[in-house]
């Protein structure tokens, strides 16, 4: 079972993404803060990380760069309310970008592509 870690500070987003992904057979772990995401990744060892950009304390971009430092790091998809992917991603080298509000099919396709 493929494992997806979802990081977002909004619980309702976490709930619905978990619902979508578990219905498609993924194992999902949700995480609601930007603190110690590296630890969670090391412990949970996901096949993909879905990471919100606008997190309190630490931005998704910063976390993304931290995760990139982990050897054999999983692919990262950034999640943001920004309409423009390039603008939102800045200098971050995430594997992909999903803008909110998303289409469920686009989300699943994007995850399928990178996992």
């Amino acid at each position, binding site marked *: 079972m493929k494992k997806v870690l979802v990081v977002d500070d909004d619980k*309702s987003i976490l709930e619905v993404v978990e*619902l979508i992904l578990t*219905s498609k057979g993924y194992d999902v772990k949700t995480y609601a803060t930007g603190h110690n995401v590296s630890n969670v990744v090391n412990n949970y060892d996901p096949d993909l990380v879905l990471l919100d950009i606008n997190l309190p304390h630490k931005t998704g971009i910063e976390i993304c760069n931290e995760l990139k430092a982990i050897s054999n790091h999983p692919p990262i998809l950034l999640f943001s309310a920004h*309409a423009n992917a390039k*603008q939102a991603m800045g200098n971050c080298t995430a594997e992909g970008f999903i803008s*909110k*509000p998303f289409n469920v*099919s686009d989300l699943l396709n994007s995850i399928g592509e990178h996992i």
Partner: protein
Amino acid sequence: MNETKTSEDAARLLAIVQSSQDAIISKKFDGTITSWNAAAEKIFGYTASEAIGQNIAIIIPEELYPEEREIIAKVKGGEVIAHYETIRKRKNGDKIIIALTISPIKDAGGKITGISKIARDISDETEAKRKESMLAAIIDSSDDAIISKTLNGIITSWNVAAQKMFEYTESEAIGKHISIIIPPGRIAEEAVIIENIRQGNKIDHFETVRVSKNGKEINISLTVSPIKDKNGKIIGASKVARDIAEKAEAEKQRQLFTQKLQALNDYKDEFIAIASHELKTPVTVVKANLQMLEYKMANDANVEFVYKTLAQVNKLSELINSMLDVSKIQFGKLHLYTAVFELDTLLKVIVENMQQTTLGHEIICKVCDETLLANADSKRIEQVMVNLLTNAIKYSPNHGDIIVDAIKTDGNIIVSVKDNGIGIPAGDIDNIFSRFYRVSGAAAGFSGSGIGLYISAEIIKQHGGKIWVESEAGKGSVFYFSIPAID
């Protein structure tokens, strides 16, 4: 006392009486006039022969009869009434102000036999006094500080308003140098003012600052005029100082309001930005849940309701994006991410996609096979095209073809979208690209926020291009935009 001496005395007295500037009159207790000198003739207008034998009432205004009776009663008692100011009536009816001195006339035995009246016409004197006191009253009731000073700057008069404004009493100020109310930094002004006054010039509405006894700075408008003596020689200056604190305050208030308004406008833009962004999260959750519901209800007839709800959520989502674009434009943060791409291909793809969701209209793409390279933000150009095509469809309720074309000319690519819809009234064309502008008339029946064309215009403007429309009410519209081409 010999008789000669007595008649000499009498003659001298008569001469004095006749030459007196004051009216000297004698009368009996019943009021009958017994003597009337030359001055009396002049003051009251009756000759001696006219007056003598008449009752004194001829020179007393009717309303003063009781006063006269009182005076007579007092004199009968031996009293002398001196410098009593009252009013008398001339032969021609004019009223005059006189100062009366009334004494009893006694015979050799000391018995009071009559009354002597000396009357001085003080009308002129009173008039001058009246004028003076009126002027003084005007000066004292003025809200402007009125000050006079010598050419050496020594204060010579100081009205009530000056006391209030500058907090020095009249006695504190008079005799002092005018510099007591001039702030140290403005002492030089005084020399200039005095120099002007010496030359006979008036200084009008000079706005400056003066200082009160307690150190309070006062914004004033100063008018300074020369004071001349009877010979026209300039001997001093009169200063009228008006407190313009209110004016200065009003100006300050205006600036404050402008700042507040600016701040409010900024808050508004910020609010739109934050609110739109915050709206995205619930819309995302609603949309995702609805889509999950849509999958689960795929074989349920009720899925129709989910479709309809989803369509509205998508509209809401577009609206939020538009609001965000507007606020980006307001903050100057609508950044373009440009790259070279084939505009002709993009246009064909957009038309194809739009046609899939449009049943009533045929969208004809006349873009030929020539490659049209543009260095632009393809996402934003797509946004403009979708906006123009959506409008073309929306405002052509009776269907008809929509024609998309693109030509290369003079280093630009000009894209056009033509419809056969309701058109735009001439009066609205100039405003159609303004923020939140909605066309009146036939278009009023169509819902919309009035921001689509505004955003499109801003996007094209940022590309260094132009956007315009040719339209006639009832005959359809052609929207054009140009962006720089690449060879």
